[in-house]
């Protein structure tokens, strides 16, 4: 096994001190390396320092050894000759990284022409061969807009590595993907590893780390707290944080006691619901009766219409067929929704205190109800004076929960409420959500792409798509 790249004491410094502690590791051919950590742990900064892509105001230190060369990371721009030729980056959300007005194969061809100085004809053949190898030959003459997400990902991958780089850096390659698509990405990355290259994966996704195998380093607050073979670290974590992280994986959750509703009445019922979007039938003939205090999970691949189902039930969308009926005599405001991206669900320029005060005034609620709820949701008073973009995603999602709980919901539709949160925060948030819904006999419709999460949490499950 040969070492492709060695990193000695790489660290990142900001104006306020060291953000990432010195870290040394080496990338071996045929052996992936994964850095696992949650948002804000500094794992992306480390990757940016290696590539020379740090934002203004931050500086790197340490050394990089690659093919007999020694590069000083504190010198800006020293890595530039490596880009594309020795090290390439798989872009996050590759469909955004492709040129929208250029055919797929031409984008790959450019790498061959300009990085490897191939002649136009030869470069075109090389590009077509790459696309064929990746099973997307039919994409060659298409524009990125005409490609599916998975195909675009393959094209971007082909373009990224056409320059001959044997080291691929992938920063959160599975962000926002469902399981099927995640497996595709892993397959792509492993293809590189099998071909004798290597991959440095930066992720918060435990499943990705497990499937990549190879070496694993766990990062917390800018420090590597644990390092070793992925299989060993994940099977027998030593550090407290790694243990918590692994326990927070929905697969390892304890199954919550199902409490089938005893109530005969239902708060919401639907018969023969069907919906088509963009000429594609999402689902048809869904019959559903939702009882107070019931927790119902909805799973399905992305684009299958999970969220649309919830929106139909809330009346935010109109069904193509079928009807939705609410129970008589219940205020319309007791049917509420939690959103996937908490910062997008609050007025952006008002403080949280202001938003809550508006709600209290509108429904003539007592202010005294807020303090106990805030304690219950572990939200500090000091957060009230902040704007939505100044608190963390987990805190803001708990504020969303606080906001809907003030209206005593009988039905709550939670649309991927934790997909943007870290594992540990996700576990806490889901636990609180379920606990409070049970306590207040509010029905909960929980939509998630994560089947394990749904299985461990819900009384019953609807699977669509």
């Amino acid at each position: 096994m040969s070492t492709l790249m060695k990193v000695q004491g790489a660290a990142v410094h900001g104006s306020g001190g060291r953000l990432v502690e010195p870290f040394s590791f080496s990338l071996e051919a045929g052996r992936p390396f994964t850095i696992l950590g949650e948002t804000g742990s500094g794992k992306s900064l480390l990757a940016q320092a290696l590539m020379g892509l740090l934002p203004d105001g931050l500086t790197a230190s340490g050394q990089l050894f690659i093919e007999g060369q020694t590069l000083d990371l504190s010198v800006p721009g020293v890595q530039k000759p490596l880009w594309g030729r020795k090290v390439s980056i798989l872009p996050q959300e590759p469909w955004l990284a492709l040129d929208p007005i250029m055919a797929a194969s031409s984008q790959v061809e450019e790498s061959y022409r300009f990085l490897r100085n191939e002649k136009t004809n030869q470069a075109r053949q090389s590009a077509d061969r790459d696309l064929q190898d990746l099973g997307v030959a039919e994409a060659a003459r298409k524009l990125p807009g005409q490609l599916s997400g998975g195909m675009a990902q393959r094209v971007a991958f082909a373009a990224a590595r056409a320059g001959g780089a044997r080291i691929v850096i992938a920063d959160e390659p599975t962000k926002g993907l469902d399981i099927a698509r995640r497996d595709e990405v892993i397959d792509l990355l492993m293809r590189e590893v099998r071909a004798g290259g290597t991959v440095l994966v930066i992720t918060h996704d435990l499943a990705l780390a497990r499937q990549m195998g190879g070496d694993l380093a766990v990062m917390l607050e800018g420090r590597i707290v644990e390092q070793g073979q992925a299989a060993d670290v994940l099977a027998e974590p030593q550090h407290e944080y790694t243990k918590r992280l692994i326990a927070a994986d929905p697969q390892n959750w304890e199954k919550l006691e199902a409490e089938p509703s005893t109530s005969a009445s239902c708060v919401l019922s639907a018969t023969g619901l069907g919906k088509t979007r963009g000429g594609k039938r999402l689902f048809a003939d869904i019959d559903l009766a939702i009882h107070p205090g019931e927790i119902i999970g909805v799973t399905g691949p992305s684009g299958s219409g999970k969220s649309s189902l919830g929106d139909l039930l809330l009346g935010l969308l109109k069904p193509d067929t079928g009807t939705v009926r609410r129970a008589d005599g219940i205020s319309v405001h007791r049917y509420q929704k939690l959103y996937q991206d908490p910062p997008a669900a609050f007025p952006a320029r008002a403080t949280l205190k202001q938003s809550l005060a508006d709600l209290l005034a509108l429904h003539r609620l007592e202010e005294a109800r807020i303090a106990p709820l805030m304690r219950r949701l572990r939200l500090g008073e000091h957060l009230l004076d902040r704007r939505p973009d100044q608190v963390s995603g987990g805190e803001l999602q708990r504020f969303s929960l606080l906001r809907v709980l003030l209206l005593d919901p009988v039905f709550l539709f939670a649309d991927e409420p934790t997909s943007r949160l870290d594992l540990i925060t996700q576990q806490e948030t889901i636990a609180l959500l379920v606990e409070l819904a049970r306590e207040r006999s509010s029905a909960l419709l929980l939509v998630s792409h994560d089947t394990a999460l749904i299985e461990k949490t819900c009384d019953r499950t609807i699977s669509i798509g």
Partner: protein
Amino acid sequence: MTSLVSVQPFSVRFSPRKTLGLAILAGLVVFAFLPLVIGGADPLKQSLRLALQPPSSAAWFGYDHLGRSMAARLAAALRLSLGLALLSVVTAMVPGILLGVLAAWRGGFIDRAIGAVSESLLALPGLLLVLMLTAIVPDNPAMLYLGISLVLWIEYFRVTRALARPILQSPAVEASRLLGFGPVYILKRHVWPEIAAILLRLGAFGGASAIMAVAALGFVSVGVRPPTPELGLMMIELLPYYEEAPHALLQPIAVIFLMVLALQLLAAREKPGKERV
């Protein structure tokens, strides 16, 4: 409106550019309105023996061809220009914003109908529309104001519609509606804070173009009639005396220049990243 304006449209610390714009504008306002407070010469009073007198220590701005005080006339003309510009911008802004939000909100027929009206008005050159109106009812500043407002509102309508549409479709607005908030709240909390800075900037540009339009119409003798002091009118009146009294002709030109410059400086966009609105 007062509660809507409570959101700070500009940063608390002005950039040098905005400070300069604000200073020039404040200077012009003081110059225009001070005579009303402390009293001054009558802008209409003629005394032919003073005709075309150059500036002196007694009269800093000199006298025009009929021996009227240039200082008094400039101040009166400024009051008219600034007042008309402010009135036109406000009159254009309020319906422009409301119709823009309405079109973005309701979409469909209403959107197309208002869009069609605005586009047909846009098909006419702005100045021509004002000219037509002033030709129908001559010698009436109200027509001038109406014409300018009719031209200006389209800009606010289009910008508001484009900006408001994504905001109104955002999850934040959906959440607010589910929580029971009505249109006024959504306008106040979601839409206005996001569009205020851009629209106020547009307002400053609109003010500048209104001032230019009033002056241009005065220059072709369509707007207000003599002896009312008006900057464009003053220019055309003083043009024949350019040889004898260049100072008199240059004064209204300088005032227009300063006024438009001040508004443009105020409206100028900060460098991206520097702006915190």
